[in-house]
Every structure is written in C-alpha cells, then in structure tokens.
C-alpha cells in the first residue's frame, strides 16, 4: 500500500505562524460553511421560520454563551453548564487528538484511534464494574481500570505498528481493519458479559454506569466552578498527559528518535536508531492515549456506553483527526483545538434545544475543517506566494504550473 504524503502534516518551526493562520482559515471556512448550510436549509424548508434560521446561525457562532430563551428571543451570557460540558466533552477528543498528533509527528497516520478508544472503553468499564467496590476501595478500582485500559490500548495500537515495522503494511489499512475488529470484539465481550444494564428496563444495549459500582472520576473541585455540568477531573488529567507528551516529544532523546524515524525511517536506521522498535512504540503510545480517552470518558460515572457498536465506530476517534490537524500536531495546541471542537459540540446541543435544527451540523463543520486542513499546504503556499516570489522563483511558480497543467495538456492532445 501507498506511502501517505506527510507534507501536509509535518511543519518546520519557521512556518509556525503561517501554519496557525492556515488552521484559523480552516476553522473560519468550516464555521461559514455550517452557517450557510443552516441558512440555506432554513430558507428552503417551509416549516422553519426566518427568525429560527437567524437564531440557528447565531447559535453556531456563539452557542457557548447561550443561556436559553426569554420572551422568544435568544439570550446570551456566561453559562457555567455550557462551559463545564465543553471541558467534559473536550477530555476524550483532546486525548484522541494527542494520540493522532503524536503518531503524525512520528510519520504515522493513526486512523485507528476509534478502535483503540473502544478497547480502552471496554477494558476500563469491564474492570470498573467487575471488581466489587465493597471489597476494594473505589479509587483503587478507578486507578486499576485506568491503567489497564492504557495497557490494553497500547497492545492494540502496537498491532498495526508491528505490521508496519516488520511487514511494511500501510498503517492506514491495518488501522481500519483493526477498528472494525475492535468494534466486533467489544460488542462480543459485552454481549457475553453480565454487565448489561438490565436494572433499567427501558434501556437496551447499554452497559451499567460505573457509579453502579460506586466508581467515578473525582470532580477535583471543578463542579464548584461549573455547577450543574458534567465536568470532572478528567480534563485536568488530560491536560497533564498533554504536557507530559510535549516534554517527551520535544525535550528527550527518545522523542527525538521517534520523530527522526517519522521524518525518514531509513536515514534514522542509518544513524543507529532502532527504527522498528520506534515505529511499534509510537503506535503503542498512540494506542495508550486513545484508550485513556475512552477510559476517562466512561469512568466519569455520568456516561453510558452503548455496547452494540459493531456497526459504527465512536466519533471521538475521527474528531481527534480534526483536533490533531488544527493543532498542527503540537501536544499543547491539542488542548486548545480539542476545547474548540467540543465547544462546537456544545453549540450543536444548544441548536437542538433551541431551534428546529440539530446537533449534526457540528459534525458537518468538523468534517469541513478536516477537509480544508488537507489543503493546508496550498493555503500556506498562497500565504507565502508574495514573499517567496521575491527570492525564490521556483517555489512561487510551482502553484502556477499546477494550475496551468490541465489546459496545457489539453492543448497537447488537440
């Protein structure tokens, strides 16, 4: 299978301000596309009034500050529930984003974050619900569950890593297969388990909440700041993990070796770096991070896992791609990109509550952002165009020739 073109993913530091601008342009285009979609759909649909359409556009842009409606008009202001929920929903996608960012830095496209997320979810829930909390302290159960889920994720992530290292199988295809294998295995494990929620008869295909066994992530005081929201200490753990990964990737020899393998596997090998070991390790790290995402989301105690998941993969894995692209693979940038993405989710929820539109517009916006991010190289070239024309004719001219090509070739044929 093919080599993924990493040009769009690897950035030199010199270009970082341009890169940030490219990310902001992606976000802007995504938001505009979302707003236009709402506007068009609202205008075309006979059931949706012009006022609702206007409200929809407003909520897409400022949904985080929505405080509901009073007298028919939308009201805006600081809403602690929205902010808390934003942080809570940011937790998993910050970590899947970090997972994909770290893999990207080492030259691997980890599209398998969804599967690793599921493996982490499965391991953490299984342990959190299986160890009786009247015999073992719940905090200890939480720690074991979190640790085991990361180990399980690391092992699962190492599979495509090993296939890449030893057999040179493209990690994208291997990860896609692993995703669906994971989805089926997880469904199988829970189907055969006695953890299915039978206490609440109205719910089908859900696992018990971890609070059923008194296990839940500590709030760490955040519920005082954002009362009424789902927030808990998970976001703090996620941020700490991001900082730790930043240190590992930027300040240690190990991180440098990983990145060297990503830049050029064979050159790294020539320089005496164990390329195979490093490819496996970076996928294992990526797997552990995605698993941690699943564990933190479902150990929260106020979330429920829909176990019959064999027909669909969790969105967190794919949102992570958007997060990593926006953050340009920077472990610290991931925190902000993840928070931004989850802000979009909060906007989507507000849209569902307050207008005839629904939360799926968030996913549309995220998809557009990912799509535009694939053009980041072009956007940067356009930004550079003026400057580079002055001292480097070749680079500035490249875009031109690309554009002229179809016309030229047609002439040739004629």
């Amino acid at each position, binding site marked *: *299978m*093919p*080599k*993924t*073109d990493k040009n*769009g*993913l690897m950035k030199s530091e010199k270009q970082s301000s341009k890169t940030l601008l490219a990310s902001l342009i992606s976000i802007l285009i995504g938001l505009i596309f979302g707003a236009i*979609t709402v506007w068009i*759909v609202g205008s075309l649909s006979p059931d949706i009034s012009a006022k609702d359409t206007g409200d929809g556009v407003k909520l897409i842009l400022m949904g985080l500050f929505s405080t509901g409606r009073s007298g028919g008009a939308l009201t805006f202001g600081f809403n602690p529930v929205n902010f808390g929920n934003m942080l809570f929903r940011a937790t998993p996608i910050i970590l899947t984003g970090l997972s994909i960012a770290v893999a990207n830095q080492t030259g691997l*496209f980890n599209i398998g974050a969804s599967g690793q997320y599921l493996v982490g979810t499965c391991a953490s829930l299984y342990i959190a619900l299986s160890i009786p909390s009247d015999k073992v302290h719940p905090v200890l159960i939480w720690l074991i569950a979190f640790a085991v889920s990361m180990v399980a994720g690391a092992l699962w992530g190492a599979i495509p890593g090993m*296939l890449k290292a030893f*057999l*040179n*199988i493209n990690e*994208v*295809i291997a990860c*896609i*297969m692993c*995703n*669906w*294998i994971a989805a*089926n*295995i997880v*469904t*199988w494990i829970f*189907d*055969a388990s006695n953890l299915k929620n039978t206490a609440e008869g109205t719910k089908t295909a859900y696992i018990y909440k971890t609070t059923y066994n008194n296990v839940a992530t500590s709030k760490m005081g955040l519920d005082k700041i954002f009362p009424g929201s789902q927030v808990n200490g998970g976001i703090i753990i996620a941020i700490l993990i991001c900082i730790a990964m930043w240190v590992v990737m930027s300040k240690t020899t190990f991180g440098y070796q990983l990145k060297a393998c990503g830049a050029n596997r064979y050159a790294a090998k020539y320089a005496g770096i164990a390329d195979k070991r490093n490819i496996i390790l970076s996928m294992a790290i990526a797997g552990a991070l995605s698993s941690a995402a699943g564990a933190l989301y479902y150990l929260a105690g106020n979330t429920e896992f829909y176990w019959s998941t*064999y*027909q*669909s*993969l969790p969105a967190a894995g*794919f949102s992570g*791609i958007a997060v990593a*692209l926006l953050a340009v693979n920077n472990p610290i940038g991931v925190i902000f990109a993840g928070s931004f993405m989850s802000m979009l989710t909060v906007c989507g929820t507000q849209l569902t509550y307050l207008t*005839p*539109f629904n939360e*799926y*517009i*968030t*996913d*549309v916006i*995220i*998809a*557009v952002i*990912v*799509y535009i*991010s*694939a*053009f980041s*190289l*072009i956007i940067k070239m356009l930004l550079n165009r003026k400057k580079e024309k002055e001292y480097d004719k070749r680079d500035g001219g490249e875009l031109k*020739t*690309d*554009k002229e*090509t*179809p016309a030229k*070739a*047609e002439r*040739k*044929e004629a």
Partner: protein
Amino acid sequence: MSFLIRQTLFFAIPLMTVALAGVFAERSGIINLALEGTMIFGVFMGVVFCRILQTAGLFEAAREAGNWQALQGYLLLALLFVAFSGAVFSLLLGVAAISFSANQTIVGTAMNMLAPALALFLIRIMANQNVLPLKNGGSATFFMIRKENLGIESDGFFVETFVNKAYLTTYFCILVFIILSVILYKTRFGLRLRSCGENPQAAASLGINVFKMRYIGTMISGALAGVGGFAYSVTSANTSATGEVAGMGFLALAVMIFGNWKPLNIALASMLFGLFKCIGASYTVLDINGDGVFKLAELGISAHFYRLMPFLITLIVLMLTSKNSRAPKAEGQPYDKGMR
C-alpha cells in the same frame, strides 16, 4: 439454500460494486478511502429522489394499477440519479487530490465524516427522526420482483433463488460490474487509466492526460460507490437512509485488497464476505438444506465471530501478501510532472 444464496447476494452484490469503485480510483492512482461516505451519500440521495417521485404520486399510482414494470423503471431512474450524485460527491476528492495535491487519506476521512453528518442533519429536519424511509411502504412494497409478476409458476431452485423476491438492483449491479471490468481490463481506455496508477510520468510521456484520467477514475469510483450504497439500502435496509451503511464501505475496501485489485477475485471475495455477513446477520434462522434443522445455530458459534471474520481475514491476507502485493504502484501519490 435458496434463502441463503439470496441473502448472501443481497450483501455480496453491493460489496462487489463498491470494491470495483475502489479499484477504479486506485488504478488511476487515487486512494478512495471515502467509499463509505460516498455510499451513505448515495443512499441519502436515492431515498430523497424516491420520495420526490412519491410526492408526485407516481409510486402509489403504479402500484395500484399493478404496473410493476413502471416501478422498476423508477428504481432504474433512482439508480442513475444516485450514480450521478456519487460522481459529483467524489469530485470533492478529485479536486482536492488531483488538482491541489492534497493528502488523499485526510480528504477521504473528511468525506467519511461529512456524508453521515450532512445526511443526518437533513434527515432529522425532513423526518424529525434519524431514519428517512419511503412513504407508505418499503422495498418489498414497491421494488421487489415476484415470480407472479413474470407469470412464472414453477418453484424450482433456480426460480426461487434468482427470480422470486429478487431486486432489479442486483442484476443492474452485476451488469455494470461486468461492463466496467471489461472496460478497465480489455480496452485501450482501461489500459491508459491503469497506467496512470502505475507510472503516471511514463503515461504522460506517451501523451496520456494523467489529470483527466484520474478525474475519470475518481468519478466512476464515486458513481459506483453510490450505486452500491443504494443497492444495499434497497435489498438490506428497506430503502431507508440512516446516515450509516454498517461499515460496508470499509468492508469493500477489505474486499478490494483481498481480491488483489482484480475483478474476478473481487467477485469471489465479495461472495465469501457476503456469506459471512449473511451468516452473521441471520444464522439463527438459516436452514441450509430445508430439513428443519438449524445446523449453524446448533454449532453455537457467536454471530460476532462471523461479523469480525472478514476484517480479520483481510488483515491476515495483508500479512501473507505484503511481500508481493499487487497494489497500483503510484496510488496515493499526487502527480508531479517534474518527478521521474
């Protein structure tokens, strides 16, 4: 047995079509990871098209008049419309990957995210729920071909398996599959297309327009993926759009790899994977030789096992063939005229 073959075909035919979609893109040098997304988009557009015809009262009128040929005609129209929509959707990939040298993996992933999101956003507004079905009925009401329609009275094996309770989509897809396979492998155009996926610079040196060929490959790919998606929806999802196709697009990717990018192998691979999918979906009610004994259910192997087999097999095949994979050499690489 008839039931088993019929059900297997319901899964295998869409798989085969979508896998060929993957082949067309990859043979021209573009990796189309967006197969799943294109299928979802195709299903949505097809269902919307049918609902528009229904709003005009065409379906109901034809059904009351007992005019089943007209209904098949409408289905054919829907298929053509879906093919067109799929081709247009795949332009998202084409423009990005061919004209702008964007990263094909990321673009494909973005399209896989975009299609279900857009479909569900619109479905929720149109139907106020997450499913967009046909009005007053489904596949069986409007599209199923019964032997009475054709005036056949026999209940022989052949009639029961391939004629009774069949759908036009199945035979449409088989026909398209054969025609396009021949075009890809036996015509000058096909050779030119394939050369763009192997060595575009050499192809260009012989006067082939690589950009044009890649656009054609990608658009055929999109059209086929859309048709495959809609065929799946008609046969297995009661012609409803739900914003997902149960991972069939990725399964098709697996079929393509397992079939080594060759049509005949792909047809066989899709039968095998279709069989797994069919057993996984309905093994408890499968009575293979009609003696009232449910062998597969008695074996006691979990349905989940059958469901994950195709993906596991593909992974194993990848391992075994990694040394001599027949994947198109230049796939995934943006075409750069200056490169050698």
